[in-house]
């Protein structure tokens, strides 16, 4: 019996180790690629004049209230960044003679961290790869905010029935055959709408034809696993607030571990079977009914 127990404990230790250790590389999942019908935006910072027509159009299209908090006197709708009333914003970077505007909104990641963590799939890549939000599935846990590397999902802190506020690429307008409000109104075509592959081709065309104009990267082509919103700029992207340039999608490491341990729920099921057997065998030997075993007396 003693050797039986030892074998059981060994099995238990092995199962526990498997549960606690990161997955073996063999279980590495495939890196997702953009859906074939993926649409997105291409924002070219060299063309943007900072008129903020896109910000106003976005608010109108999405029925969002003005954000007059920045100047405190209620005069200007001038959001400083994305917030619960603002799905897109124009920000200014200025240092010495170097300056650039930058438009912020959801990047519609190819492998979005927000959707990876979302318990009931409230945030999910839906039609055209657009990361959209479904109110009926959201409990307001805000894991999406913890996860997003771009600080995009905003929470209606002031509301008692708060929603997640984020750019959904005007999916209602797309359904009507229109383009997103921001690209529709942009007077300089600094931000344009299209299929991701077309936008990517256009971005590379601009890089090739005017190489001195740009930093030699299309931000979003590979960054954080790739995004459906792409950027061209004449100043380094980190100065525009893009903090990360790794090509790994954010959910990658977590997925490796979680899938390694929980794939098909085999490891937990095996661990449970072993635990159940151990507890069953130990019953009557003392511990479960409470009296001491021989060796412990």
């Amino acid at each position, binding site marked *: 019996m003693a050797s039986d127990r030892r074998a059981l404990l060994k099995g238990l230790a092995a199962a526990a180790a498997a549960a606690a250790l990161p997955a073996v590389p063999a279980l590495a999942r495939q890196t997702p690629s953009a859906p074939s019908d993926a649409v997105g935006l291409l924002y070219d910072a060299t063309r943007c004049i900072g008129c903020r027509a896109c910000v106003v159009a976005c608010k109108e299209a999405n029925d969002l209230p003005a954000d007059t908090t920045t100047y405190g006197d209620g005069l200007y709708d001038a959001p400083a960044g994305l917030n619960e009333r603002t799905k897109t914003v124009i920000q200014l970077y200025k240092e010495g003679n170097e300056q650039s505007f930058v438009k912020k909104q959801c990047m519609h990641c190819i492998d979005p961290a927000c959707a990876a963590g979302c318990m009931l799939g409230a945030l999910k890549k839906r039609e055209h790869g657009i990361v959209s939000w479904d109110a009926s599935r959201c409990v307001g846990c805000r894991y999406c905010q913890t*996860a997003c590397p771009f600080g995009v999902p905003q*929470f209606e802190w002031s509301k*008692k029935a708060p929603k997640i506020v984020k750019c959904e690429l005007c999916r209602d307008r797309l359904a009507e055959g229109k383009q997103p409000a921001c690209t529709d109104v942009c007077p300089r075509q600094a931000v344009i709408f299209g299929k991701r592959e077309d936008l990517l081709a256009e971005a590379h065309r601009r890089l090739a034809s005017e190489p001195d104009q740009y930093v030699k990267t299309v931000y979003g082509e590979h960054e954080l696993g790739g995004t459906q919103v792409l950027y061209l700029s004449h100043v380094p992207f980190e100065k525009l*607030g893009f903090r990360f340039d790794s090509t790994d999608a*954010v959910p990658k490491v*977590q997925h490796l571990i979680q899938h390694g341990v929980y794939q098909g729920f085999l490891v937990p099921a095996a661990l449970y079977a072993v635990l159940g057997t151990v507890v069953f065998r130990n019953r009557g030997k*003392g511990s479960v009914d409470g*009296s001491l075993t021989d060796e412990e007396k």
Partner: protein
Amino acid sequence: MRANAKPIGGRLLTPSYKVILLIAAIGVATIIWRFAAGLGATTALSDGYPWGLWIAFDVVVGTALACGGYAIAILLYVFNRGQYHPLIRPAILTSALGYSLAGLAVAIDVGRPWLLWKVPVMIWRWNVNSVLLEVAVCIMAYVVVLWIELTPALLDRWSQSGQEQLRRRAERIRPSLDRALIWITALGILLPTMHQSSLGTLMLLSGPKLNAIWNTPFLPMLFLITSVCMGYAAVVFETTFSSLAFGLPKDLRILGSIQRVAAIGAAVVVGFRFVDLGLRGVMGQVFQLDLPAILFWIENVLFVLPVLMVAQKRVVSLGSLFRSAVLLALGGTLYRFDTFLVGFNPGRGWHYFPSVPEILVSVGLVAVELAAYIAIVKTFPILSGVRETSPTAVD
């Protein structure tokens, strides 16, 4: 052993109990205010720091400190160490209370709590890739498991009640409950293994926003080991408390060996973290003079001190046991705060320090737990070593 567990009895509404109730009442009032006024008005949370004290302390630290039931169950049922049996029932009670209140804290923290029921129910909508879903479902299931594990205490009370009807009902239920408890007990070991490690996995989704000191693929393993250490520390607290509050005898030998197990865990964590930092090539980060590095060293000192105390066999009195348990619990607590808040960098311009209502709720929930614990051990057979004559109720 089971027969040894007895209700403490005595007056419940002592002066110090009234103080606990007052703190709990302030917490409950603040919770009502939070639902009336919303999260923005009552918390310091923001779009940069969407998770604050309630998640980091009440849920992540709270459930780890409520791992006493899990930690003792491993020793008792897996390694068949019967001598730990007197500790299991109070440990399960603290776990049940701690986990239940962590669940309550989640309901207070989420913005749309009226939809929480969908998480365990709408299985067809589950995002099986979501670590948070796994944690949530696991914790919900474990709360149920813990209260089932406590039902023998209820049956014992019925048996001891002197009422024939209750006694007979208890005897009728007991055989089938005993059979089911084997599998419930196994579940009670499996579930914490899953969600305590996954609480660490959770923060890996912050990816590059999480400081390299804490951002390791071994986060789940480190969270699991430290949760067991914190569980043992909590058992030492609890035994110290019941020995001081109710004058119960304490078995220093058993507590000492628990403390040794916890110290081994702490030593493994400290050693492993340095190896891991070296392997990931980020050792330099802990030699910078900034807040994350300083807190990293404090974490390690808090883990190493109890290891040294145990190694030098200085843990012999209840006082020194208590001190080393406090150090371990603080180490595990700081490690969790650092992983969830300090090491989490949402970018420039964001700051977080818990608001007064957030603190009042967290303190209030601890008071609720303490009040419930005292009421239950006075009414139900939880603690062993209770003398036959009713002890003088100490406050």
